[in-house]
Structure formats: structure tokens, C-alpha cells
């Protein structure tokens, strides 16, 4: 029986410290495997206990008391204690913190050690989503003893110990024999980074890797499906893929033009052409597998004639020349080409400009928001709130929506929250803020004898703790 | 018994006939001289006897070399003969040696190719061969590379290679053409000595009648792939029958009729001219090396005079020319033409430049191949303030071309459509077109066949009379200088060592260097 595994992933993490960089690739490697937080995501997106085996919430919703697991040790042999939790949370929310998701910790007023196994976190306002926030990779618990070398030799409490990192090639981790919880089934796991999709295909086919998470070339999946050596897992992610429009400047400050765009794009064609059929159409900014999801695709049915009519009604001169900025992922590049062709059919000439991430961040996402159209997948879970920020690159400024989101944060009643979320989805869809295209699928290719891989991706993680080989 | 017998040899290259029924023979201890104009097939005859012909060559007839029928031998058998039974010396010593191997290795290679002996023994014998070629080991270590030797010394290495195995026959294809007269004399003496000592046969090729006449026992004259005349050297010049042979002889001794019309006023005055070159530094910190090319030269040319300038290669003749032409500034001294300096301030004086023209040695390199003759010959008009235009220009072109014996129609042609002699005429036409006062001829006839050379010399003499030209005639060939100049300067290492009336200097040289030069010059027998 094999007890080691080589997993392929597309992106190599720049370093292995999840608490000071936004790169999802870091979480993919270390989340749950090496580092653990107070809470953790389950494979289905549920929030489960992690290093906190349970927690109590005060009646006013302001105080969380976390009861920590006992006997947990960091990989360097030091004990895991309440002081480590305080250290981690204080470090993340400090003034000079370089945590990429600092807003997660913004609500914390204080962190207090009650005893070595108990931590009390006081919030400045009630926050129903606090355990959810503590499950993020950016909120994992680190120890002050090992913090200095964390970027290259991560020391956590997880079921795997970091072993070595051949930069540009792979990270290897080995089973942690002293793990406090259910031990890992594998003795060792190597994560190999293969950015090129063809190389990824070749590597799986040639057996160089046993599994490939988030397989980058959907066009190759049928070949794997047809091959008994492999199995293909299709799951969901939190990635709403949208055609973002700059609401802050002409022509997309005009709702009619945005509506026209929404009707001009053919979701199925994009899913077929760019994703080879994988992906779920969405009509608003919400994950379809979420119970609160409302199917609003009907509001933006593919209807080029209507799109033309709307453009005429908007009074813009055709052809309408706009710029479409595309970041590197293939869903954006491929989707962009298809969208451009579809827009051209209704009289919108979208000039494609392919950019790197850094340029995308610089010009589109931040600062001047110098873009008209862009395609991007927002992979953070439950992030509809970004539409409430008028400074955000959508430049969408709707006070009603902003108020709704503010109220939602203060609401803890589940039914009410659900109702409000549905309302928010409808507002966005009816305002045609963005072109809502599809929910990014999670495609994993694996050797048919591997079990225990996550099918869905509720957060960026390749949790290997339950992975094992079967005959 | 003869070493080399060539009978009815015909040769064609890619179907073009090159040699026709050539018959020659060389006996042991005999020197056969082969002469003829360029392209007459001298080299091909030699190559044929060694079977080193270019691709596509086919031979018929008979070649017998040291008892072997060359044309029926295999290539491997031929390799066994080359270097052992017959050695060969080539025209161009600068390129005939492998630049990357020491001279000792290259000489020893001949021996190693043919005899199974150790490298050390081969080196010992190579040392002997080099010593016989007058390159003794103590002065010329065998570890030298070719670039560390002068042209004459390299030619000795080639000779040492050729005679290392004491072959019965030595073929020398223009062995001295690229060398100075003094060096040439030494090499020819060396070859003669080797033949006499070893009883070796020598086939020596030359285009210079005088060279061959001096040393050969037997002479063959070739023209267009045929041997037109053969006979013993002693009597051949008297008994010559073939018109070509006679023409060749006549041309070799030709002296144009000249009636010098010399004025007394000095046209060109060169006063204490010094020109040195700073070589690029070999290192950032080392002192730059300086070459004194011309060291304090003074002389005058009178109007209508023809002044000769002779001297060995590298003695500074061309440097002086460039200084006179105002192409380069001199470090000190003054050059004036008709009283005006050629250089004023930091720029050449266009007034003076206009009155000076030049003809170069190489008829092939003196013209831009992309321009038509009309454009080529009118280039000097660039300096004129108001050059003739339209019809006047056409007339000037026609006149210049006619003056040098070409037709005005030739102005529409490109330069490659002309022979070497015609090109040299065009060069003269170019020099004439602005009606200059002084024309400098830098080795202007050295690259030409004797017959063509004779024509050009006649032309120059004629033009000088018709247009009252003044010449500065640079040459290393004393017979040419004698025939065309009134006065001569002898230059050595950047200095003028002797000057005077041409006859006087050449007949009764005073300076040892001049004496050496005159003695070294090959001469035709007196009685022809």
C-alpha cells in the first residue's frame, strides 16, 4: 500500500507564511496540513472546530470564549497554548501588521488569555461571522518561538510537518507523529508546482504526479474521464466569475449600457468555449451551492437583439469602443476572447489588453481604476459585501445596498440574514452592476486509487489529512 | 633521363580548355624557367604535375614524374610522391603557412608524412632542412610561428619544407613575386644553390623575364595555355622566333621616348617632413608604441619633371604620398605646392588639393564596382568650385577617356568590364580630368603584365608631354624607374639616403643601400 503522494498544483507559493501574504497558493499548501486555526473549513464549507474544540458566545454577541484542544504541540516541540492564540491574533491586527486580510481582525477589541487552554476574544460589535473569519488561512495560529523563519520553514500544529522546499519545484511534508487529532494517513506528501497546463497534463498522464488539484486545462478532462487509471472530481468553489464593468465612468455608468452587455453575453457559450462545459451559470454575485442563492439568470438572458435595442435606447454611438483588461488566468483570457466576440456582435468593440497580476492590481483594481471591462473570479467565500464599498473597483455606489450590508453585519438571526442576502442578490442583478457569468468549478484529476481528496473548494486549500490509497 | 616530362598535356576545367598540348621537361640539376603573361597557364601546368588541380579539372596527355606516370596513379600513390619526390614552393609566403603551427612542426610534417620515424628525429631533420634554407636554429628557433617571421623568412620555411626530403624535383611558382628586390635576390640565390648542391631539378615559374633569364638553364614561354617557345636560356633571346616571345622581350626592356620639358621653378617643395604613427596601446598603462614612418624628408619637384621614389616595402613611400596629398597631417615640416601649403590650419587646403591627383597600384581595388565609369572619372570634380555641368561635363569625360586611349562610349560601362590595363588607364583618366599640376603614381604599373606595363608607360610619357604634367613616380622596380624618371630619390626607413639624376644614381650608386638595391635587381642579358 502506497503511503506517499505527489500532488500537482498550478501555482507555487511565494513563501509559506499564510499570515503575511495574500497568495492563495500559500494556503493551498499549508492550510490544515501544516497550520491550523481556531476553527477550520470542512470539505463542504461548513465551519468546524479546529484548535478550539468549542466556543461560547456571550449573550450580547461581543465575547467569544474559545476552549482549546489539549496536548497539541507545534512541530518544533513547543506546546500550543492560549498565549500563542493571543500572539497570533494580536500580531495580525497590530498597526504594523502585514496581514493581507487585516479586515478579518478589525472587529477584535481585545484578546485575553484566561488560562493555558482558554482564550477570550472581545469584539467591538457583534459579528455572527466571527468563527467563519477565524477559519481563514490568514488567521492560523503561529508561535512566537518560530515566527522568524516562518516564511521558509513553517512551524505549525497540523497533521503534517514541513520537510523541504525545492524552490521552483516542490514542497515536501511528512506525517506529524505527535499530532493531537486524527493522524494523517499518508507518511509523506509532495506538492509539485506545474504552472504550464500542458506540462500539467503531461505530468498526470506520465504518472509524475498522483493527483492534480484545480486542474488548469478543462479541455483535457474528457481524456482523463475516459481513462480507467484516473478519476475526475468536479466540485464547486467560491469563485464568482464576473465581467466587471466600471460603474464609475462612461459608458458603463449608464445602467442601460450595462444591461445591454448583460444581454449580449452568452453564458453557455462562454462556459462551453472557455471552460469546456464545466461551471455553473450565475445571475448574481452569489455561490449557487449556497442555500441562500437565488437564481436570477433570467434577468440577463442571452438576447443580442434586446442588447442592441438597449444600446440604442441608451443613445450611445456605435460601435462603442471600450477596453477590456484581462488578468492571466485562462478563464479570463479565454472568456475575454469570447466575450469580446459576443460584444462585437451587438456593436461594442472591446479592445483586449492582457496584463499581469501586478498590472491588473495597479491599474484596474487600485488607484485610478483605469479600466472599462475586466474578467475576474472573486474566490473569497461570502464576499457579496464588496459591492457595498463605493471605492471598490466596481465603482458601484448604491446607498440602499450599502445600508442593507451594514444591517446584515449586525443581524444574527438566521432567517433574517437569509432574507437580507436574497434581497442583496436581487439588487445587484437588477442594477446589472457586473456581467455575472459563472461559478468557477473545482476540477481535480487523480489516480483512481486515491480517496479523501476534497471535491469542493470552500477555501483555497488542498487538505491532505484524510487522503489515502485504496486497492 | 628527365625528372619531369610533360607531353601534350591538355587541361580543361568544367569544360573550359585551359592548357593545350603543353610539353616540357626538366632534367636533374637543370633549371627550367617558365614565363608568360598572367593567366597563360603557368600555375596550372605546375599543379597538373602534382595533381593538385581545382575541382572539375580533367587532364589528357602524359606527365611523367621521377619515373611515375602521374595521370595513371591513384590519389594515395600521388600523396606518396608529393613532398617526397617533388616539392613545391608557392607565390604567396604570407598565406602559404599554417598560422597556428610552429615552423619546426610544419617542416617536420613533410618528413613524418613519408617516413616512419619518431617526432624527435623528424625535428632534428627539420632543423637541418631549415638550416639549409638559411634559417639556422640559433637565430630562428623552430618554435617560432609564421607570423613572427618576415615574408622572405617565411618563403625560406616553405622552401625548407619542400626540400626536407631532398626531392628530385622542386617546383617554384612565382616564389619571389611578393617579395622585395633584395629579398628576391636572396631567395633566388638560395634556390640556385640548392639545385646545384643536390643535383635537384627546378621548375621555376615567373612573369618576370629578367628573373628567369638570370638563373634558368632552359626557358619556356607560355601564352594562352600553349608553350610558344622553348630553348636554352643562353641563346633563346637571340634565337626567338615566335612573335609573342619577341613582343614579351621587347616589352620587358621597353623604355618610352621622353623629351623632358623641365622648368626650373619648384612645383612641390617637401621640407623636413616627419610623420609618425602611434599604435594603439597594447595595455591601458603602457606607453603607446610609435612608428616613425617618415623621418625628416626634404626634396623638390620641378614643374614638368618626373621624379622617381624607390625603396623597400614599408620604408614610408605611401606615407609620404598621403602627406603630400593632404590626407594626413604631418607632425612637423612643411609641404607646399606652387608656394601654397597643402595643409592650412587643421584642414587640407582645397586650393592645393585640386592640383594634385593620384594613381594607385591595384587596378582592381581603385574603383567602386557599383559606379559607372563616367561617375568614377568625374569624382575629382568634387573639389572644384564650379565643376563643369551637362555638355561640358560630358566633353570632359570624353576627352579624358580619349586621352588615355579609351573610347568615350566606355563611360557607360562598369569597371569590371575592363581588363587590368584598361582599368589603369581609367585611373589615369580620373587623375587627368581636373588637369592637375602633379600626379602621384604609387606603384602604378607594378601589378601589370610587362606588355601592358609598356603601354601604360608610353601613355604616361605621352601625356606628360601633351599636358605638361609633373610626376612623382613611386616604384620598387628599378628598370621602370630608369625608363620613366628624370631624377630619383632612394628611401630607406623613412629617410632619403640618396638622390640625383636617375642614370647617375642607378649606374653609380653611392650609398650602400642603393648599391644593394641595384645589385639585387634582376637583369636581362646585356646583349639582347
Amino acid at each position, binding site marked *: 500500500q502506497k503511503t506517499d503522494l505527489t500532488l500537482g498544483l498550478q501555482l507555487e507559493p511565494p513563501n509559506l507564511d499564510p499570515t503575511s501574504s495574500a497568495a492563495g497558493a500559500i494556503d493551498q499548501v499549508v492550510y490544515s496540513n501544516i497550520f491550523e486555526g481556531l476553527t477550520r473549513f470542512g470539505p463542504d464549507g461548513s465551519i468546524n472546530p479546529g484548535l478550539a474544540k468549542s466556543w461560547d458566545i456571550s449573550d450580547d454577541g461581543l465575547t467569544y470564549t474559545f476552549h482549546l484542544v489539549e496536548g497539541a504541540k507545534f512541530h518544533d516541540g513547543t506546546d500550543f497554548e492560549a498565549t500563542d492564540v493571543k500572539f497570533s491574533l494580536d500580531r495580525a491586527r497590530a498597526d504594523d501588521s502585514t496581514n493581507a486580510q487585516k479586515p478579518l481582525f478589525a472587529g477584535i477589541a481585545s484578546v485575553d488569555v484566561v488560562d493555558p487552554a482558554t482564550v477570550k476574544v472581545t469584539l467591538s460589535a457583534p459579528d455572527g461571522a466571527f468563527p467563519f473569519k477565524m477559519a481563514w488561512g490568514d488567521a492560523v495560529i503561529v508561535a512566537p518561538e518560530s515566527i522568524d523563519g516562518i516564511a521558509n520553514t513553517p512551524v505549525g500544529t497540523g497533521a503534517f510537518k514541513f520537510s523541504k522546499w525545492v524552490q521552483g519545484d516542490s514542497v515536501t511534508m511528512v506525517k506529524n507523529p505527535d499530532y493531537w487529532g486524527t493522524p494523517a494517513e499518508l507518511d509523506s506528501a509532495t506538492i509539485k508546482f506545474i504552472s504550464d497546463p500542458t506540462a500539467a497534463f503531461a505530468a498526470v498522464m506520465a504518472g509524475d504526479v498522483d493527483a492534480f488539484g484545480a486542474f488548469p486545462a478543462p479541455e483535457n478532462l474528457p481524456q482523463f474521464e475516459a481513462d480507467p487509471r484516473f478519476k475526475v472530481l468536479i466540485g464547486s468553489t467560491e469563485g464568482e466569475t464576473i465581467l466587471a464593468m466600471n460603474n464609475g465612468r462612461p459608458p458603463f455608468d449608464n445602467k442601460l449600457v450595462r444591461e445591454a452587455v448583460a444581454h449580449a453575453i452568452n453564458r453557455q*457559450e462562454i462556459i462551453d468555449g472557455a471552460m469546456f462545459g464545466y461551471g455553473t451559470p450565475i445571475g448574481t454575485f452569489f455561490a449557487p451551492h449556497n442555500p441562500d442563492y437565488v437564481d436570477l439568470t433570467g434577468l440577463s438572458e442571452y438576447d443580442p437583439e434586446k442588447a442592441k435595442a438597449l444600446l440604442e435606447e441608451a443613445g450611445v454611438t456605435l460601435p462603442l469602443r471600450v477596453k477590456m483588461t484581462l488578468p492571466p488566468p485562462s478563464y479570463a483570457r479565454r472568456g475575454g*476572447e469570447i466575450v469580446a466576440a459576443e460584444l462585437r456582435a451587438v456593436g461594442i468593440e472591446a479592445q483586449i489588453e492582457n496584463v499581469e497580476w501586478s498590472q491588473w492590481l495597479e491599474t484596474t483594481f487600485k488607484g485610478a481604476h483605469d479600466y472599462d471591462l475586466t474578467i475576474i473570479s472573486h474566490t473569497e467565500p461570502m464576499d457579496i459585501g464588496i459591492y457595498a464599498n463605493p471605492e471598490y473597483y466596481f465603482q458601484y455606489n448604491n446607498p440602499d445596498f450599502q445600508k442593507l450590508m451594514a444591517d446584515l453585519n449586525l443581524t444574527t438571526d438566521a432567517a433574517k440574514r437569509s432574507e437580507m442576502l436574497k434581497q442583496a442578490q436581487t439588487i445587484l442583478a437588477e442594477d446589472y452592476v457586473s456581467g455575472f457569468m459563472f461559478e468557477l468549478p473545482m476540477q481535480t484529476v487523480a489516480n483512481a486509487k486515491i480517496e479523501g481528496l476534497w471535491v469542493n473548494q470552500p477555501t483555497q486549500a488542498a487538505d491532505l489529512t484524510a487522503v489515502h490509497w485504496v486497492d | 633521363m628527365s625528372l619531369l616530362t610533360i607531353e601534350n598535356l591538355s587541361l580543361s576545367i568544367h569544360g573550359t580548355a585551359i592548357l593545350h598540348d603543353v610539353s616540357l621537361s626538366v632534367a636533374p640539376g637543370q633549371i627550367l624557367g617558365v614565363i608568360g603573361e598572367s593567366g597563360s597557364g603557368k600555375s596550372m601546368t605546375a599543379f597538373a604535375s602534382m595533381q593538385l588541380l581545382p575541382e572539375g579539372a580533367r587532364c589528357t596527355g602524359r606527365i611523367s614524374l621521377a619515373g611515375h606516370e602521374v595521370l595513371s596513379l591513384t590519389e594515395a600513390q600521388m600523396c606518396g610522391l608529393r613532398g617526397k619526390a617533388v616539392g613545391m614552393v608557392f607565390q604567396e609566403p604570407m598565406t602559404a603557412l599554417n598560422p597556428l603551427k610552429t615552423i619546426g612542426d610544419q617542416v617536420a610534417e613533410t618528413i613524418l608524412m613519408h617516413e616512419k620515424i619518431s617526432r624527435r628525429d623528424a625535428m632534428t631533420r627539420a632543423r637541418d632542412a631549415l638550416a639549409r634554407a638559411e634559417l639556422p636554429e640559433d637565430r630562428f628557433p623552430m618554435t617560432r610561428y609564421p607570423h613572427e617571421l618576415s615574408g622572405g623568412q617565411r618563403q625560406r620555411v616553405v622552401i625548407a619544407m619542400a626540400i626536407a626530403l631532398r626531392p628530385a624535383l622542386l617546383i617554384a611558382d612565382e616564389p619571389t613575386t611578393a617579395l622585395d628586390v633584395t629579398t628576391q635576390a636572396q631567395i633566388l640565390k638560395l634556390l640556385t644553390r640548392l639545385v646545384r648542391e643536390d643535383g635537384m631539378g627546378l621548375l621555376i615559374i615567373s612573369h618576370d623575364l629578367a628573373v628567369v633569364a638570370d638563373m634558368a638553364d632552359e626557358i619556356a614561354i607560355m601564352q594562352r595555355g600553349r608553350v610558344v617557345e622553348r630553348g636554352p636560356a643562353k641563346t633563346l633571346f637571340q634565337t626567338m622566333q615566335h612573335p609573342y616571345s619577341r613582343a614579351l622581350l621587347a616589352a620587358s626592356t621597353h623604355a618610352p621616348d621622353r623629351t623632358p620639358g623641365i622648368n626650373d621653378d619648384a612645383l612641390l617643395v617637401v621640407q623636413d617632413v616627419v610623420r609618425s604613427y602611434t599604435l594603439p596601446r597594447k595595455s591601458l598603462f603602457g606607453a603607446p608604441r610609435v612608428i616613425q614612418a617618415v623621418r625628416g624628408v626634404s626634396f623638390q619637384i620641378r614643374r614638368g619633371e618626373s621624379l622617381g621614389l624607390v625603396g623597400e616595402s614599408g620604408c614610408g613611400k605611401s606615407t609620404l604620398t598621403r602627406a603630400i*596629398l593632404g*590626407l594626413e597631417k604631418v607632425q612637423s615640416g612643411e609641404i607646399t605646392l606652387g608656394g601654397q601649403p597643402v595643409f592650412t590650419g587643421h584642414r587640407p587646403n582645397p586650393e592645393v588639393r585640386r592640383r594634385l591627383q593620384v594613381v594607385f597600384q591595384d587596378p582592381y581595388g581603385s574603383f567602386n564596382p557599383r559606379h559607372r565609369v563616367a561617375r568614377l572619372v568625374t*569624382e575629382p570634380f568634387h573639389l572644384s568650385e564650379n565643376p563643369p555641368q551637362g555638355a561640358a561635363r560630358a566633353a570632359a569625360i570624353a576627352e579624358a577617356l580619349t586621352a588615355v586611349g579609351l573610347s568615350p562610349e566606355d563611360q557607360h560601362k562598369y569597371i569590371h568590364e575592363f581588363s587590368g590595363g584598361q582599368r589603369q588607364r581609367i585611373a589615369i583618366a580620373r587623375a587627368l580630368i581636373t588637369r592637375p599640376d602633379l600626379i602621384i603614381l604609387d606603384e602604378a604599373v607594378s601589378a601589370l603584365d610587362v606588355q601592358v606595363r609598356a603601354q601604360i608607360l608610353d601613355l604616361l610619357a605621352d601625356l606628360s608631354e601633351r599636358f605638361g604634367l609633373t610626376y612623382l613616380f613611386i616604384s620598387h622596380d628599378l628598370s621602370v624607374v630608369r625608363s620613366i624618371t628624370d631624377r630619383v630619390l632612394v628611401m630607406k626607413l623613412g629617410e632619403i639616403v640618396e638622390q640625383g639624376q636617375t642614370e647617375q644614381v642607378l649606374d653609380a650608386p653611392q650609398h650602400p643601400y642603393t648599391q644593394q638595391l641595384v645589385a639585387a635587381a634582376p637583369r636581362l642579358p646585356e646583349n639582347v
Partner: protein
Amino acid sequence: MSDQSLSPVQASSTLWIALRSRSLILGLVLTLTFVAAALISFVWVPYDITTLDIANKIKGPSALHWLGTDHYGRDILSMIMQGARTSIAVAVLAVGIGMLIGVPLGLWAAARRGSLLDEVIMRTNDLVFAFPSLLIAVMITSAFGPSATNAIIAIGIFNIPVFARLTRSSALSLWQRDYILAARVAGKGAARISWEHILPNITNMMIVQGTIQFSLGILAEAGLSYVGLGAQPPTASWGRMLADSQTFISFAPHMALFPGLAILLTVLGLNLMGDGLRDLFDPKLRRGRT
């Protein structure tokens, strides 16, 4: 003989030699085929490549689509025809930049041989040469965004030292010729001599080098587009076609095969043509062939 002119008298024999030279003919035919394809694409292509036909994606060669369709259902023949346009335009302009800047620099350096200027020009060239070319292209496109124009500039910059060096070395040997001396005697300045005498005599060599750089330009454009730094969609580009087809190679090899062949044949054609031209212009080398 050192002259390399092609004048009326020689012209007929030159033409004859040209026609006899198999590599020149083959090279010309290949090159002209693609040039023609590029030209025709301005007025006509079998299918419009800006409209996608997702329903007909990844179809092998057929009567309808001679070379099949790609992953968006576009006609590959049409893409190759328009891609020829991009490749040729990028390569021509890049070679043009190299020549327009490199040749004058080389002439200038040769005219002032041994001077500080010469040294500075040549050292700068060496420096450009020392930079890994693809990296500079990556940096240029990172700074100004990927586009055909930036590909042209990036490739063009690396053509400059090539032409400057070649020009300088051939000009230096020409400066030793007597006809240059004759021109100097006639009072002509360095600039005029370079223009009248040097330039015409190095054009043949520049044409030969031009074809070689041209073929390298096509390869470079393909390489840049392959890594996404060349022409942007919807402009067709062979390199991008190859990049796009990569993941399909295991089940739709035609998508990679045809653009790859297009590059190969064009580059081959240009190289053969360059070889043929070199033989034609340089009688010394002509001897090397039978």
C-alpha cells in the same frame, strides 16, 4: 576579383545562376507563399476569425475547413493567413529598426575607427548583446503592456547590434580600399564616402543578413506570442496559436501542427533564400557548391 556588382552584362548570368540555385528557388517559393497568404488575407479569408463558432470547435481538417478549426471554432487556415500578416509585419519592422539604427551606427563607427566614439558605439553594442534577449522583451512588455508594437521594439533592439557590428566590420575592410582613398583625394568627407561608396557595397551583405534576421524575427515573434507577450487577441498570431493549442495537442494535434508548420516553413524558406542570395552575391562562396 573583389567586386561583387551585378551589372547588365553579368545580370543574365546572375539570373541564370539564381535560377539554377535550388535553395534560392525553394526559399523564394516558400517565402512568397506566405507573403501571398498574408496579402490575400487583407481582402479575403475563408472565414471571418473574429466571429466565434463554439459549436464547431476542435474539428479536424475537412472540406469545409481545410485545416480544421480551433477551440473557438475558428477556421485555422484563415488564422494562419492572418497570422502570416502579424509575423511578417513584426519581423519586417523589427529588422527595419535594426537596420535603420544599426547600419548608420556601424558606418559612423567605421568612419571614426579607433576613436573614442567607435569604442563607445561598439561597447554599447556589446552591452546590448550581453542582455538575455527574451528577458528584455519580457521587461519591455511588462512595462508597456504586451502588444505587437512592443514585440517589434524588443526584437528590433536586438537587431541593432547585429547590423551595427556587421556594418562596421565590412565597412572597415572597405575603408582600406584604394577607391576610398581616391574619394578622399577628391576631397570627400567621411559621411559622403560612407553614403556613396561604403553603403552601396555592403547592401548585398545587408540583404543576406536581413533575410536571416527576418527569419529570426519570425521565430522571436512566435516565441514572444507563445509566452503571451506578442500580438493580442483578436489579432491572429502563429505563436499564440501554438500556445493556445498546447493543451489540445494530445487529442487535436492539427491545432498545433499547422501553425508550427507555418513557422517552420517560413523560417526555412527565408533561410534557404538567405543562403541562395549569399551564394549569388559572393562568387567566392559560390565555388563551394557544385
